[in-house]
């Protein structure tokens, strides 16, 4: 991989524990994410990967621990606040606005960048009108980038799965996030679609310098594109480091391949 300028720690997760009733989803997890890097969270099914992402995104509120984002400490996050701080996410089970066109879906991602307030926009007052045009330009660039020009006006619900995943990414990109959280961006895709998605993730990271945190359970893909990897199993952290280090880690091998008893 080409030389990259990985910066300071931007997101620091400390001693996070999360449980649902008696079920411990996460136990004492700590790791950090540096600026401009691609950081993967991997682990077998049910390891707590999505729970971790949901804690960062503010969907779940951990019982213990602390999250530091750009020097600010949080006991727990709040979805909207997180979005305002420049963290975007995609969803494992697509959460697109199905009845709306591809264009409209991605336009919603620009919501935070619209300065005139919702009430003025409702009236399409002069400045709000001009703003809409300006935002549209940005969105068109994202559509070009993701190569979905042909589907601009198609309702998202009618697109094949792989393309829907792309729109999901597009909507997150429209927020111009500093940190992008991707929840299994390649789940359920065929090899070709996976390659496309990898290319987009690398390009986003390269061109916009976006920090990326991604979840995958497919080891192969992750090892190829990420800079550092956290491995979770049964809600505990069992490995953390560069892909090659992690690959050699005894615990990780055991978690993935099982052991003889």
């Amino acid at each position, binding site marked *: 991989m080409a030389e990259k300028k990985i910066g300071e720690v931007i997101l620091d997760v400390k001693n996070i524990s999360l449980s649902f009733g008696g079920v411990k989803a996460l136990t004492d997890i700590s790791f950090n994410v540096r600026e401009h890097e691609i950081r993967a969270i991997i682990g077998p099914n049910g390891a707590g990967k999505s729970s971790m992402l949901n804690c960062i995104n503010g969907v779940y509120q951990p019982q213990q621990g602390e999250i530091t984002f750009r020097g600010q400490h949080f006991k727990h996050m709040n979805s909207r606040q997180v979005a305002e701080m420049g963290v975007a996410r995609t969803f494992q089970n697509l959460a*697109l606005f199905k009845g*709306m066109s591809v264009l*409209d879906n991605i336009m919603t991602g620009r*919501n935070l960048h619209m300065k005139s307030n919702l009430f003025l926009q409702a009236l399409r007052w002069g400045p709000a009108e001009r703003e809409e045009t300006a935002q549209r330009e940005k969105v068109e660039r994202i559509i070009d980038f993701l190569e979905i020009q042909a589907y601009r006006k198609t309702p998202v619900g009618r697109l094949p799965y792989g393309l829907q995943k792309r729109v999901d990414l597009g909507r997150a990109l429209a927020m111009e996030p500093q940190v992008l959280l991707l929840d299994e961006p390649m789940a359920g895709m065929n090899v070709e679609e996976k390659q496309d998605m990898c290319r987009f993730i690398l390009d986003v990271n390269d061109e916009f310098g976006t920090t990326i945190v991604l979840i995958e359970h497919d080891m192969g893909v992750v090892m190829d594109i990420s800079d550092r990897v956290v491995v979770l199993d049964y809600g505990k952290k069992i490995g953390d480091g560069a892909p090659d280090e992690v690959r050699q880690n005894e615990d990780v091998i055991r978690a993935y391949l099982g052991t003889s008893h």
Partner: protein
Amino acid sequence: MGFFLETLIGGLMAGMLYSLIALGFVLIYKASGVFNFAQGAMVLFAALAMARFAEWIPQWTGVQSPLLANLAAFVLAMLVMIVVAWSIEKLALSRLVNQEGVTLLMATLGITYFLDGLGQTLFGNDIYKIDVGMPKDPVIVAESLFQGGILVSKEDLYAALIAAALVILLALFFQKTATGRALRAVADDHQAAQSIGIPLSTIWIIVWSVAGFVALVAGIIWGSKLGVQFSLSLVALKALPVVILGGLTSVPGAIIGGLIIGVGEKLSEIYIGPMLGGGIEIWFAYVLALAFLLFRPQGLFGEKIIDRV
């Protein structure tokens, strides 16, 4: 022929009034996925506010012109509806984010009873009248074509025009503005909308205010026709079959559904009524809705729900 046309036109106009109420249901459903049982109560509440303010304002300020008093009452009533929207969001909905549709439906059922009571506590429970100067006298048109011409109620005609204007306005709002887009986004998926930073609470206040506005317009039109009293909240029941017919997710559906039911009621009463001993008008809409539920549950224009297995 003249008589048939007269019935038809009467039906269309009655239908437009049903549509107006149905529109309130569809709006909230489209924008927040909530079936708002309280729409009828909101119509009553808005109409009560309007009627009483129009009565009180001349007493408070000594304004003599009925036009000014009505305008001021309209603005005040709208403000009251915005406060209602805001309170509903703060007290009920904000605690129910990401809940099942049924839970939200039950919440609106509670809101219905609360609003019914509150409205009558604040504004009284007599029969009040709203007089916004709608002409009551009918006109006779097409006299040269048919003997005796066709009798058209001017009041209904104005009501139909107002309803049509309202629908066009709302359609533009939903399809062409950034706010409309945010509303549709919230309706589709709360969580995703939050993750891209759409403020759920603001959106909900806007939706309920718009529904309040529609309720106010419907309340004024129905109120000036029938008088403002508790039974006004029951006209919402008439709108249920309209919504089923037109589809819960379609604004044009609400309009066309209303027209079909309005016309169907009147025509069946006149032409089939005598054979069955009359009274068809009362149950026609519900039987039609039942048939639709059996054969086309998504309504004429609703989205067909297909689940991936």
